[in-house]
């Protein structure tokens, strides 16, 4: 069985939050900018704790940031 893919709307949410930069979001949630980039590109799925911190940074529920697609498989 392959890995399931977790999608996110971080890029869109940043845009609608006064065009927040990747660096600003990284500082808010306590990670590096490279981690935000990797998440936006779908290369890295964050831990549950980081996912909650990102949702809190945008002040929206977790499922509005992340979605789980069981049909999509990544390499």
């Amino acid at each position, binding site marked *: 069985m392959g890995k399931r893919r977790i999608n996110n709307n971080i890029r869109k949410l940043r845009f609608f939050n006064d065009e927040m930069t990747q*660096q600003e979001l*990284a*500082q808010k949630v*306590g*990670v*590096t*900018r*490279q*981690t935000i*980039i*990797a998440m936006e*590109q779908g*290369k*890295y799925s*964050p*831990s549950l704790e*980081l996912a909650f911190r990102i949702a809190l940074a945008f002040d929206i529920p977790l499922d509005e940031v992340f979605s789980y697609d069981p049909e999509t498989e990544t390499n």
Partner: protein
Amino acid sequence: MSFQQKNITVSLVNFTLILGFYLIRVIQMLLGGSFNSTNVFRLWGIVIALAVVVTIFATILTHIVSAIIHAIKTGEEKSTIEDIEDERDRLIDLRGTKVTYFISSIGGFLSMLTFVFGQPPLVMFTLLIFFGVVAQIIGDVLRLYLYRRGF
């Protein structure tokens, strides 16, 4: 390039140079007929001391030089968030360490096999440190690859 990537690059360069030095010295000993326990264990000591001391100093130097370059570029004196280690950094480090330990273990096993097949103990000790350094290099290459790929 993040601080972690710089550190890994420095480590990779260090261990590649150490491996080069080690191989040259071993070949010199083999060709010169001085491949004996005294020289081999002295080389062991030199390689381990180099690995520890050079890595520590190179890491400190990298940090200082990076901070100076960053300060010149941006005019900021304080260190940025890029210097922190987050969960992705830790996972990448863990994957690299896993590969390093795996190769070290295989290398250790192969080294002991030479002893089993009648080679002198010096061959085993020479191969042990060779595989140790090679494992570190491969672990660093994997870490860099994961950073370049995203994860």
